[in-house]
């Protein structure tokens, strides 16, 4: 990833901070529009199916394994969960990209910070699974 910077005598990374920010920005903007598109399809499906959000019985639980089947079957909840999942995954994706970018720019401390943020999110997931179980 890096080459020698002759004048300075230090390794010069190919990726710079501006490039990392540009990649993250694109990820967030495209990802948000994608998530909104999924959710919008789900909402339109809700409206077409006359599903009343305030009176539809027990909410469908989140089950990742059921999402692809629900999407293929054009069930609104499939698109809604796909969109909501994308929304929640976006910031995690941003941290992953930033962490990789910091590694590429040899900024080890911030790469470690990124890893620590991901660890906190992982602990959140484990804690939630523990509470649910």
């Amino acid at each position: 990833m890096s080459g020698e910077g002759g004048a300075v005598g230090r390794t010069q990374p190919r990726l710079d901070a501006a490039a990392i920010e540009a990649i993250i920005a694109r990820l967030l903007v495209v990802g948000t529009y994608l998530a909104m598109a999924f959710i919008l399809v789900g909402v339109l499906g809700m409206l077409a199916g006359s599903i009343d959000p305030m009176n539809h019985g027990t909410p469908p639980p989140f089950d990742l394994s059921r999402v692809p089947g629900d999407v293929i079957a054009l069930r609104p909840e499939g698109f809604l969960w796909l969109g909501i999942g994308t929304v929640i995954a976006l910031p995690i994706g941003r941290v992953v990209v930033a962490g990789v970018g910091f590694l590429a720019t040899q900024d080890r401390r911030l790469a470690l910070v990124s890893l620590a943020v991901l660890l906190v999110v992982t602990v959140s997931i484990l804690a939630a699974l523990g509470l649910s179980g």
Partner: protein
Amino acid sequence: MTAGVVLLAGGFAAGLFGSLLGLGGGILIVPLLTLGFGVPLRGAVAVSLVSVIVTSSAGAGVYLQRHVANLRLGMVLELFTASGALIGGLVAFMLPVQALEGLFAALMAWVAISMIRRRDPPRPAAAVRVLPPPDGDQPPVPDAVVPEEPAELPADVAQPSFTDRLGGAGYQVRHLPVGMAGSVGAGVVSAMLGVGGGIIKVPLMHLVLGVPLRVATATSNMMIGVTATSSAVIYLLRDEIDPFVAGPTAVGVFLGASLGSRIAHRIDVRVLRWLFVVMLVYTAIEMSRKALAL
């Protein structure tokens, strides 16, 4: 079907007014869902967290493109907001709902007081580049000047310390440990009450860490995504997110915030702000009544 459209419209209004007033949707969505639609508080907080992640991601993308948000500082502080959000997300399931309602009422009262005391931002001069207001839980943007790109350091200059490198053009970050501690608090509040926490983070970064207000606002907006995600996964895996409520609300908030960010610089928000203060006070009273079972 009607309730779905009303939810979408409510989300749109929350996103629009939140964006115009520099607040995130959370402070509006939670009372809208609980008082307006009878959604249980934890369910409303969960839906609100999804909405604030949406507006944070959309806003952060724009701010990073324009190099206004400080990615390095944001990454460091969000480690602590995320930790706070993990704690808050767990505590939220241990506290009685009445306690959460009471806390939310207190938060609304605090926001109302902050808005009353807030000074109006100066009108931007024609030559000054203006950015749309952030879409997170943020105050308006008084300093409308976009910071210059950081100047490159000469090769023979000694390597700056970690804290030095968190600064930007024309400012150094100071009192970082205080910022870290405050960020934990912001994360706890965010997770328990479903708000972005910008109302804590922006003053913290600006007044304590010495970050210019515009940069603090944009950086806080960026951090909200990870902060809210840390607690949103807890609500998600505990089946507290109703997709049929979250879907229309999130789409409405996204559309409203997008419109608000485009028209904000053309609207005089002073009257709007006072109306909002009245609404906040009224809602705080209603929340307090629920908390006290009056």
